[in-house]
């Protein structure tokens, strides 16, 4: 039995046990979305090929070792999924993919450029004829329609097009954007919500649907407040470092040590009074011009410099514990190293140890929510390319050993 188990190792039920999903495509945005299904018990099969591998399968690998089964990011993002290798440039490979979708899957998720699925005859219009209750979701950068639908792009461009780059940086310098290709982490949350809503609907009506999610649109939708300020007031709000219009101090402050920082935010005058007391009420903190938000905003440069002179003599952890104990918002600017030692993330079991057959031991990361009764789990390593071929050929597609051998020989499986 190779289906994803219906209960977790602790005996708890899985929310989506029995759900069957086929995934085509690669990179981050599509596959991350399907983790919401895989982590909660869905059986997810990725259709891949060795001739055109997912670029994440080689991302970051050196010239000398180009194995398709050891790229860390791919394995970390695709745990809990299975992989079957089908050569989609051969019509027989496409036919097998079609059979897997039509005869087995409840959901088809893909994030190719719009023309790819049509080329293979695996677009929704073709598939719905064969499987009327199919739920299919497509997630490309710009969407399936419109003048720029075929524009080839990755998350880096998505962050630029949707505004996130423009909004991150110092007012006197170039836009830097937030680290990470932000649409790649933001869009999957929307894709998952849309698919889950369609599944709830299907439970009631038995009907499927096609879902078109443009990654840049999920990002621009998220920025509705920014967009409305332009639409209603004609105001183009610019990046402003770490400052806020409704809080001061509000930013990151240098602490003792090598590039150590903490955040501090005072959202009202009570916060400010608590902060002043917590740092020992030095003379400058009692300056009446800092007593109101308006005053603090008017003298924000001075305020930040004075506060930095206090934090600069202290460790970031000490600042945070002093301020949080006094009810003032503060946080360590955590590096990747800090995240691995963060007691709160540890409490949530955020990093799950996985023993990978090729990559070795590493961690996979949980989603941003924890469910009390059906927590789900990470039970499978990121799949080796074609690792689950036998299961798919024999148990699902019911191919004979001779057929499999022949197709292998002719390069259809691989």
């Amino acid at each position, binding site marked *: 039995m190779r289906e994803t188990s219906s209960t977790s190792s602790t005996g708890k039920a899985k929310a989506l046990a029995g759900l069957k999903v086929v995934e085509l495509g690669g990179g981050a945005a599509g596959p991350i979305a399907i983790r919401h299904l895989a982590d909660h018990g869905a059986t997810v099969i990725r259709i891949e090929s060795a001739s055109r591998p997912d670029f994440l399968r080689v991302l970051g690998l050196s010239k000398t070792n180009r194995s398709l089964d050891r790229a860390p990011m791919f394995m970390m993002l695709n745990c809990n999924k299975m992989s079957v290798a089908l050569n989609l440039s051969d019509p027989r490979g496409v036919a097998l993919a079609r059979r897997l979708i039509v005869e087995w899957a409840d959901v088809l998720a893909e994030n190719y450029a719009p023309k790819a699925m049509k080329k293979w005859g695996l677009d929704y219009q073709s598939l719905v004829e064969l499987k009327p209750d199919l739920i299919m979701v497509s997630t490309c950068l710009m969407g399936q329609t419109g003048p720029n639908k075929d524009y080839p792009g990755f998350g880096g461009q998505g962050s630029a097009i949707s505004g996130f780059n423009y909004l991150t940086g110092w007012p006197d310098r170039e836009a830097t954007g937030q680290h990470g290709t932000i649409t790649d982490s933001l869009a999957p*949350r929307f894709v998952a919500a849309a698919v889950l809503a369609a599944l709830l*609907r299907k439970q009631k009506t038995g009907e499927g649907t096609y879902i078109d999610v443009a990654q840049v649109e999920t990002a621009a939708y998220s920025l509705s407040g920014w967009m409305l300020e332009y*639409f209603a007031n004609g105001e183009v709000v*610019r990046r402003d470092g770490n400052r806020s219009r409704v809080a001061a101090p509000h930013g990151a402050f240098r602490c003792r040590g090598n590039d150590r920082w903490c955040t501090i935010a005072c959202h009202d005058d009570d916060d400010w009074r608590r902060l002043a007391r917590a740092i020992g009420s030095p003379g400058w903190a009692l300056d009446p011009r800092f007593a109101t938000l308006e005053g603090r905003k008017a003298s924000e440069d001075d305020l930040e410099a004075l506060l930095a002179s206090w934090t600069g003599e202290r460790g970031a952890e000490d600042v945070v514990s002093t301020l949080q104990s006094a009810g003032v918002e503060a946080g360590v600017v955590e590096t990747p190293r800090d995240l691995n030692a963060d007691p709160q993330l540890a*409490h949530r079991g955020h990093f799950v140890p996985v023993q990978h057959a090729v990559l070795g031991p590493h961690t996979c990361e949980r989603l941003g929510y924890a469910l009390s009764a059906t927590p789900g789990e990470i039970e499978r390593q990121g799949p080796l390319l074609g690792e689950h071929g036998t299961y798919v050929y024999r148990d699902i597609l019911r191919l004979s050993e001779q057929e499999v051998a022949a197709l292998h020989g002719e390069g259809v499986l691989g």
Partner: protein
Amino acid sequence: MQRPLDGFRVLDLSDETGFLCGRMLAELGADVVKVEPPSGDPARFRPPYVGGIADPERAVTWLAYNASKRGVTLDLAAAEGRALFDRLCATADAIVETYDPATLAVLKLDWAMLHAAHPQLVVCSITPFGRTGPYAAFRGSDVTVTAMGGNMALTGDPDRAPLRCTMPSSYYHGGAEAASGLLVALLARGVIGEGQHVDVSLQAAMVSTIMTGASQWAMDRRDRGRTGASYPVGKTLQREVWRCKDGFVSYALRGGPARVPGLQATERWLAEEKIAAPAWQGRDWKAYNHNDLTQDQVDALSAPLQELFLRKPMRELFDESVRRGVMLAPVNDSREIANGAQLRSREFFVEVDDAKRGLRYELPARFAQMSRYGTDVRGAAPLLGEHNAEVYGAIGVSAAEVDELRRAGVI
């Protein structure tokens, strides 16, 4: 048009950190009822305001993220208010809440109590760090959860402080993540027969924005600092955001099968512009691997590109890139996004006729387009207490009782 979540009801007790979750669910079809204190949600009292007029019905954040919801007022601390709330809960499938732990305790709204009284309810908590654990009582708004989620340390210039995004991006990651978690829990009711707690941590949601960076550090122990508009690739820094004639564009020097045509098209473009680019001309792009470059090679590839970009305005660069298949993108501001042909052609923006406020404005809409279902904006954000009579009437509270509750300050 029908919507996928028709028939579901969600009570939205969230503040700004959770607004987006309810808006998504409402546009997917749930009847999302925003429950505010009789004095109004705090977001109504924060700028910016439409037209610059400080009026709780014109707060931009309120209008942008509570569209498509209905709205009632209710004093949850008052005994009559709580009784009314329990009657509402009996009609609901899910609750979204964002209370700090002290308020949650005072209002007796914690998961266990709600579950005991209303076993069908899914309770979704969106908090800075999660409902339990050593930081559960820590305060944290966007800037702090972005820092503690690991994004900030890697964002910004090396000679200045780590940076957040000027709009609170963690509320978007967390809100959309919450919507997904809540829907998984609604599906799980079919398996376990009851609701459960969905404990969203904004910090945890932000960890995924650095794309496995934390898990990769645990393997290679390589500390990566802030590198501004460039990305560390191999042993080099490769620029991602470039200055152009009138703004900025995004372009990466990466290779790989999907990017080969774009690199070839860039090479042709540089030649047509007669920009000297020996590092580009005649290169075997199929064999090109950006991971193996030296910094000198990166610089030799970068200089002619920068020359090209400085010659032309952002719009022209993008239109040409679309035509040529070059993977370049404009660093858009809100005006450029509002006027973009692609989004307009997909009817991504919808005009909201907010007649009750005498306003008309556009909003981004339809984060997902569905062949069988509608997902559009369903109307302007509710006025304070706009649907009191309608919502309370539907659970059997008479008009006279509504008036009485209003006089008593409960609604």
